[in-house]
């Protein structure tokens, strides 16, 4: 067994740790067909959805006769035509911890934009004309738009259907709740010298991935249903569609082509079920996609929350007790409702090693757009609150915010017990910190922002433009402990190349490249020898999908195991050619070396195995972890507050992040930088606004601002590498953690500049002006 050979030291690594180009980059820069829509299918129909104009209503009757009679219309579906199967659209491992409160089509609508009916027609114009011909007899019900009153007695009940399951208390519009603690916070508060209690509010943010949701379905020559979809979760989609349409899993093939961004918005079965139903009804290929306008309110959003935090500290800055109370709105359906909010507690509170922690959370239904998974998964809300409060406490105590954080932060060797209480909808597993580079992140980040020189001190000085700096420290996870798992498969070709087949889903993150790097490094071959193919339920092994910052550590773990097995196989065949024991052989530079220096090429070994020994070298492996090692991040912001306009302008954002070992530092930086851009939007601009009847007021890119090239400040990204024992080559994760600290760092910088605290996101000029005015 050559697997016994010790791992190569980082300096000797040929592929891992290198800033290599994306393995799938060529097709992207040349515009080759890659994405879901880049395909011409004969007979393709266009699907369209009739969206509810009401936030809350019952459909007394619906008449589709005129729509069906329209020439060019091939299918019209309402709830009368489809199976009624309660389910969740959340892309989570079975059994999903989200309530089964959703139907393919229903006789009740629960938000403006909810599905009423669907049409498939020859052209979009005909499909839209058909939608206009559908007659609906509405019984309009009172909307429920305010999360603070959703549970009031007498409020309209949003999920009054009898067949939903997993709802905490439907009669009170309570989708789910979480109550957990370690220690005794009340006792902790009694021991505290200073107690602060503050309330924070966070908005509905939209993913705004550049490629809206899109699906194309058809029946293949064997009458199987093919679903070509822009998804992060192909295997969950297959299972969900089978259940909802009551067809066997074996009849479905899900193909994930290139994805134009997801950020969690595609960790959800959003359109696949309906598109598949239209294909089955019409017998024709159907394309169903959201327009940009629809994407804003008919897809998913981040959960808006109201957080009330109470923290008690000793005079020396030691945190004794922290009680976080969260009220969150999941919107019309409960997808990801308790899991996102569970993370608000489990991935935020344990950052500081207080002996007394308590987390209480209610997640309510509203007749508003549906919330779901979104990069950070509950942490951006929690960290905005926690890091703002911690900053305020440090200021009250006259302590440097960095020193305060360092004093209290979790460190290597610590065991986070709260995670054991807060699993994904069930008991979790305790989290042991095996690697932690947070002190180094703080130190390097502070140097990069110019912490000492740029601090203004939280006082308002004269002048129009006020500058300040702020900091936030955060963590995340790397996969869901004990839940996420992945498979990988490798086979050797006669020219020394290897096909790597994974169910992992590159949504633009670069995971195909990272996984190929892991395979190449393990096999001792160059990156061009790895031919990666990801996510086709017929041709690749299972993978839970791309979410929870899991791909590098979980899918990468599977790839590494499979590659080790293939390497051992190759060594066995090479041993025959080299006349040396397989365990003495070393694979590198596309060759296999014997101790004396004699070597054969991988190609020669593969040819020998194939044609002489009649053996296809091929291996598969599965991988999961029972722990979720957190990446750590220190985010620093420098802002300029314009006291005339109220605008908070970010000047410089520094992200210093401990991601374990960076498999591809260039891509890792890109993940951090993209997260900052989204985080700045969250901090300063982005909010899906609803009017008094629940209708979206800004469902377009003119009125919903995202940061562009011109708006972005200077960015500095510092990768702080640690060696994580549970990760392949020491890797943890990077995709999400960078977003968590942006809003609090900006808010803390705004305080440093003005002496004013902003506890509601986004921090918009009107709020800043009002606060500044109040002080004049």
């Amino acid at each position, binding site marked *: 067994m050559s697997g016994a050979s010790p791992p190569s030291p980082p300096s000797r690594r040929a592929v891992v740790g290198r800033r290599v180009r994306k393995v799938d980059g060529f097709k992207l820069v*040349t515009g080759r067909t890659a994405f879901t829509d880049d395909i011409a299918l004969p007979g393709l129909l266009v699907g369209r959805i009739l969206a509810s104009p009401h936030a809350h209503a019952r459909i007394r009757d619906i008449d589709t006769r005129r729509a069906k009679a329209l020439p060019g219309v091939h299918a019209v579906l309402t709830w009368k035509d489809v199976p009624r199967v309660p389910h969740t659209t959340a892309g989570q491992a079975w059994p999903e911890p989200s309530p089964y409160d959703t139907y393919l089509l229903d006789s009740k609508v629960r938000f403006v934009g909810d599905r009423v009916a669907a049409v498939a027609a020859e052209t979009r114009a005909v499909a839209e004309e058909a939608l206009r011909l559908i007659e609906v007899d509405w019984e309009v019900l009172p909307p429920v738009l305010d999360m603070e009153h959703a549970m009031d007695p007498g409020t309209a009940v949003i999920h009054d259907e009898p067949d939903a399951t997993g709802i905490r208390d439907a009669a009170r519009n309570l989708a789910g709740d979480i109550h957990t603690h370690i220690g005794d916070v009340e006792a902790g508060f009694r021991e505290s010298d200073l107690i602060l209690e503050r309330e924070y509010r966070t908005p509905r943010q939209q993913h705004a991935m550049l490629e809206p949701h899109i699906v194309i379905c058809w029946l293949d020559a064997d009458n199987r249903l093919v679903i070509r979809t822009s998804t992060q979760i192909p295997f969950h989609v297959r299972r969900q569609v089978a259940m909802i349409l009551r067809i066997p899993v074996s009849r479905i093939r899900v193909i994930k082509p290139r994805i134009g961004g997801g950020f969690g918005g595609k960790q959800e079965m959003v359109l696949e079920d309906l598109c598949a139903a239209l294909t089955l009804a019409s017998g024709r290929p159907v394309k169903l996609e959201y327009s940009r306008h629809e994407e804003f309110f008919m897809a998913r959003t981040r959960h808006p929350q109201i957080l009330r935090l109470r923290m008690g500290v000793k005079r020396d800055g030691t945190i004794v007790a922290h009680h976080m109370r969260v009220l969150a709105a999941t919107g019309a359906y409960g997808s990801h409702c308790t899991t996102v909010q569970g993370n608000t507690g489990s991935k935020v509170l344990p950052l500081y090693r207080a002996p007394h922690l308590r987390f209480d959370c209610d997640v309510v239904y509203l007749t508003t757009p549906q919330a779901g998974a979104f990069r950070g998964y509950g942490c951006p809300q929690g960290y905005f609150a926690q890091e703002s409060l911690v900053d305020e406490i440090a200021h009250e105590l006259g302590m440097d915010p960095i020193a305060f954080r360092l004093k209290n932060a979790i460190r290597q060797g610590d065991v986070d017990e709260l995670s054991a209480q807060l699993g994904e909808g069930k008991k979790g597993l305790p989290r042991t910190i095996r690697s932690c580079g947070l002190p180094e992140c703080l130190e390097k980040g502070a140097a990069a922002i110019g912490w000492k020189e740029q601090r203004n001190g939280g006082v308002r000085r004269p002048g129009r433009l006020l500058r300040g700096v702020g900091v936030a420290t955060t963590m995340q996870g790397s996969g869901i402990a004990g839940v996420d798992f992945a498979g990988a498969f490798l086979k050797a070709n006669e020219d020394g190349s290897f096909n790597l087949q994974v169910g992992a889903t590159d949504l633009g993150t670069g995971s195909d490249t990272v996984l190929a790097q892991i395979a190449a490094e393990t096999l001792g071959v160059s990156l061009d020898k790895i031919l990666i193919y990801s996510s086709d339920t017929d041709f690749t092994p299972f993978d839970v999908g791309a979410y929870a910052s899991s791909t590098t550590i979980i899918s990468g773990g599977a790839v590494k195991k499979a590659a080790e097995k293939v390497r051992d196989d190759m060594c066995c065949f090479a041993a025959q050619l080299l006349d040396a024991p397989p365990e003495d052989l070393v694979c590198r530079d596309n060759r296999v070396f014997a101790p004396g220096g004699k070597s054969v090429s991988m190609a020669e070994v593969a040819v020998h195995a194939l044609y002489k020994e009649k053996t296809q070298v091929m291996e598969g492996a599965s991988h999961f972890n029972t722990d979720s090692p957190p990446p750590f991040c220190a985010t620093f912001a420098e802002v300029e507050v314009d006291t005339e306009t109220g605008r908070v302008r970010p000047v410089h954002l520094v992200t210093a992040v401990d991601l374990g070992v960076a498999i591809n530092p260039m891509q890792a930086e890109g993940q951090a930088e993209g997260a900052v851009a989204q985080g700045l939007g969250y901090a300063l601009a982005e909010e899906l606004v609803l009017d008094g009847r629940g209708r979206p007021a800004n469902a377009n890119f003119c009125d919903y601002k995202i940061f562009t090239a011109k708006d972005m400040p200077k960015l500095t990204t510092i990768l702080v590498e640690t060696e994580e024992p549970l990760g392949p080559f020491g890797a943890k994760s990077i995709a999400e953690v960078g977003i968590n600290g942006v809003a609090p760092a900006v808010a803390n910088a705004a305080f440093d500049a003005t002496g004013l605290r902003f506890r509601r996101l986004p921090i918009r000029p009107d709020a800043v002006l009002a606060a500044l005015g109040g002080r004049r």
Partner: protein
Amino acid sequence: MGELVIRATVNGAPRRWTVAPGDLLLDVLRREGYWGVKNGCETGECGACAVLLDGEPVNSCLVFAAQADGRRIETVEGVAAGDRLDPVQEAFLDHGGVQCGYCTPAMILVTRALLARTPRPTEDEVREALSGVFCRCTGFKKPVEAVLAAAARLADARPAAPPAGRKPARKAAAR
């Protein structure tokens, strides 16, 4: 509805299309196999559909196909010479300027237009030019670095060019 026959040059090759008066250039280009032209909003906001019309970036979802009659269109498919990538494409790959790649065709075309006009742009000029193309993945640091690197590479490749200009930003962008 009456149909129109239009003639345009796409990536150097003459094309003849039959279109309806209301057809968008975006839809016609995609229908004709130029899949690199992306639809991100269809309402002129995101820039994903940018192509060069007589060398200038336009959002093809805001242009009727009929308006392209007699004009020169450049799409991302025409940027590489066969398998050989253009320096702008190389730079986007080398500098990590591509993540999901949905905005990439537009970024590359807008960059080409910028560098044709301003061979050695300042960072502000690059940001101004790219600001019409939305990107939700990169945070723009690496795309901006890629454009600056491409400019340097191209300038090195043609030493006979006049000295680098540092003029104030011109209105560019695929708006």
